[in-house]
């Protein structure tokens, strides 16, 4: 190996919390050679981001502290440096890009302003050369027509473009080391593939080193030379990427590698009874202008879609963000108004009022994406689960209700003894189980699942998918499964519709879609999701 650039030795990070110290990172060591990419992989709470942030001393000191360890960068210990010395390193020799490009860019300044500022500050450039260099940088990170984009504000750019601007800012000072903290997690799969390709290209052209933090093993396989697997603040395994993937030694690594959602959905059955059918569903949001707020145009979030969901079957809805898939789900569940016919159990429900819908709500349930947001923090999980029972089965006695709650908790794999705890005492996966229990306790016939796995760690995702499949088989449930994650869809859906800009691009049995996609867009989605490869320009958004 070539020269060592960054060497983390025996590093620990502790946080002071209510008088006691909790250790977030526990004596980790790793090296990063010049021109090498090392990935820190782990699930949430493993300490990977904290480790990366301590390289630049960006943690909330003094509540964070380093009980032990050194971080040697070009031979000098970053932890021992003064704030002044550190400023010479930050943004100059080591730069960082973050997960959320919207919040890392200042919304009040143009792109040009933000990049030029860095050049002036760190390199003392004059206006004119700074502008020229900005154009060069934007070109380098693959922003098309950079001249036109100079005056754009962050909100005028797409997520992928914003992340490209962030990368341009990080590259402005020709850093030796780029720390990327989950840089693609907030992006669509197709955009993720583009950004990763850009980063890999830049790295080899500039002979930068890269410290890459991610939870996604697919990305690691694609981009990293070496991998450090972290869990509970410790590095359990380090090695070249190929070796780790081919021959994992630590049980946790093996667990991670095995964690992808697996299994097959039950065979598609076109004869099963349709539970929910939508015909020509449209959700148009008016764009109003002028003094009299006349409607001049519409945002066509969902534009004439037909769906059928059958008992015991799952319809997967796939699409990138903004494709209208969640809007479609909400329209079918009558949470937002739409036009078109929605037949539920053979009855047209699209004209029913809120009160007339109430008895139907029990058979038509929703599980939301964010298990942290969808449970009221002030209610115990027993109260959360029994809320629906109180409305739909008001005759139950408190004891009978309690029994039902206990039963459904057992069914979703939670200990009924925990039912008097509050949501914050549970992990993400457990909370999602609570959210599923809340829907299941009413014995629904149709469940709309809006990205139920995307806020969860990989290994937990697989468990939730298994749980959903078992519940479906047991209760003959009809699922409308909305997700951007094709791996989860493949493991659960019999039929798939691919959406883009409010319309169906492709629909059909899941096997056909995944093995023999008919449209370029679907092909691009699938190759981006499973192989992290980019599609030719024009088929997907930027």
């Amino acid at each position, binding site marked *: 190996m070539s020269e060592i650039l960054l060497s983390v030795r025996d590093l620990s990070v502790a946080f002071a919390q209510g008088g006691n110290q909790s250790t977030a990172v526990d004596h980790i060591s790793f090296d990063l050679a010049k021109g090498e990419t090392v990935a820190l992989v782990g699930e949430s709470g493993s300490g990977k981001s904290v480790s990366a942030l301590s390289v630049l001393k960006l943690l909330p000191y003094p509540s964070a502290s380093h009980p032990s360890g050194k971080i040697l960068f070009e031979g000098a210990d970053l932890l021992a440096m003064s704030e002044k010395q550190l400023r010479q390193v930050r943004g100059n020799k080591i730069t960082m890009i973050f997960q959320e490009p919207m919040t890392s860019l200042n919304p009040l300044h143009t792109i040009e302003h933000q990049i030029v500022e860095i050049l002036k500050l760190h390199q003392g450039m004059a206006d004119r050369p700074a502008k020229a260099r900005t154009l060069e940088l934007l070109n380098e990170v693959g922003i098309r027509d950079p001249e036109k984009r100079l005056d754009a504000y962050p909100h005028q750019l797409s997520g992928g473009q914003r992340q490209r601007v962030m990368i341009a800012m990080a590259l402005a000072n020709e850093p030796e080391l780029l720390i990327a903290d989950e840089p693609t997690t907030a992006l669509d799969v197709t955009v993720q593939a583009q950004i990763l390709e850009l980063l890999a290209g830049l790295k080899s052209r500039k002979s930068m080193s890269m410290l890459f933090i991610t939870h996604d093993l697919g990305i690691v396989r694609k981009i990293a030379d070496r991998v450090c697997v972290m869990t509970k603040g410790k590095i359990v395994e380090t090695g070249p990427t190929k070796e780790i993937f081919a021959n994992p030694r630590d049980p946790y690594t093996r667990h991670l590698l095995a964690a992808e959602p697996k299994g097959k959905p039950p065979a598609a059955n076109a004869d099963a009874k349709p539970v929910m059918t939508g015909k020509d569903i449209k959700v148009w949001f008016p764009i109003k202008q002028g003094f009299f707020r006349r409607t001049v145009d519409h945002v066509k979030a969902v534009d004439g879609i037909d769906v059928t969901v059958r008992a015991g079957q799952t319809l997967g809805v796939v699409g990138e963000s903004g494709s209208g898939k969640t809007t479609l789900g909400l329209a079918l569940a009558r949470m937002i108004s739409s036009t078109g016919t929605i037949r539920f159990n053979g009855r047209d429900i699209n004209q029913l009022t809120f009160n007339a819908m109430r008895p139907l709500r029990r058979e038509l349930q929703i599980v939301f994406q*964010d298990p942290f947001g*969808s449970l009221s923090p002030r209610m115990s999980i027993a109260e959360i689960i029994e809320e629906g029972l109180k409305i739909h089965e008001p005759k139950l006695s408190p004891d009978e209700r309690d029994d039902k709650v206990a039963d459904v908790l057992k069914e979703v794999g939670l200990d009924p003894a925990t039912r008097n705890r509050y949501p914050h005492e549970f992990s993400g996966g457990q909370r999602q189980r609570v959210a599923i229990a809340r829907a299941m306790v009413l014995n629904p016939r149709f469940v709309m699942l809006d990205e139920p796995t995307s806020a969860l760690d990989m290994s937990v995702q697989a*468990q939730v998918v298994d749980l959903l499949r078992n519940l479906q088989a047991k209760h003959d449930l009809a699922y409308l499964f909305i997700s951007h994650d094709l791996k989860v869809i493949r493991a659960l859906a019999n039929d798939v519709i691919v959406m883009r800009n409010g319309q169906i691009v492709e629909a059909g049995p899941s096997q056909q879609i995944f093995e023999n996609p008919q449209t370029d867009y679907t092909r691009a989605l699938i190759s981006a999701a499973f192989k992290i490869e980019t599609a030719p320009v024009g088929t997907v958004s930027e």
Partner: protein
Amino acid sequence: MSQAVVENTVVETTPRRAKRPWLSPLNRRRWQNFKANRRGYWSLWIFLVLFGLSLFSEWIANDKPILVSYKGEILFPVLVAYPEEKFGGFYAVTDYRDPVIRDEINANGWMIWPPIRYSYRTVNNAIPDAAPAKPSWQYDADKRCGQYPQRAADPDCIVGNWNWLGTDDQARDVLARLIYGFRISVLFGLILTAGSSLIGVAAGAMQGYFGGWTDLLFQRVIEIWSAIPVLYLLLIVSAILPPGFFILLGLMMIFSWVALVGVVRAEFLRARNFEYVNAARALGVPNRTIMFRHLLPNAMVATLTFLPFLTSGSISTLTSLDYLGFGLPPGSPSLGELMKQAQSNLNAPWLGISGFIVVSLMLSLLVFIGEAARDAFDPRKAFR
């Protein structure tokens, strides 16, 4: 931490209905935070003790004895108004401070007096100087009891008849007036706060939850409403209606509810699209229940933080109205009226000083409590 809990643990035992702590963990943490603020915590206790005591003002400072034993009968003059006939007199109301009555009762039984033998409206007929008289401890025994028939040897020349803080210009005991005045001010403040927060929260909740036209209309109405100059209106109304505790309370409440609407409305606007609120809608939970069970707790944090400040604000408004003479009816034990007397009797500094100390103590206690409550509800604030 919850992260450490192993997924997928199913225990088959189902204990019946485990007991839940009465404070949720979140509220327990807030209470801990509140306690960590020593100043606020002590202020709360001092305030509660003072307020609790002042609720029993009649048993602390009164011109009637607490308990009387007369000819073998136990009487409660504080609670029951006995006519003088009972003790051989002929007035409709008994003046227990009258030497004749006193001797009559003492000859046929005994009586227990409150520590201060004056009520807020009792006129001390035996003050040593012209009213306002200095605090009793500033005189020697001869001077202090100079007006009693037997001077220093008189049975009335006792500590119970002292004017600890002197008298006002109508020879009424200042300490007794302060005790009653504290009670009426705090009660006024608390009732006004409770009432206006009830109206304010309800109005803010409706606006925030329904949004759209409801919100727009309400907002405009409130803007117009809050532009009405309250003081002038009070002056006009007090010229028509007889001023009294409840009329003042009502008038003030008509305007003070506006203070909370903005905060509550903002909380409801923010929270009505939370996922757990959507989840409740998807369950078919009616609007009313969603507002009470899911949204109100969010808004209560902001409201509770505001309450002590609202209370102290209404107390100072009442005091200033009394000071201007548009407040409680004449004769009521009011702190503002004491201030006014202090202003017109600059030669009697005990009026101004004692009034100032009570008002500033009361307001500071409330502000300290409010400050501690605000910090306790602030999730970003970390205490040791």
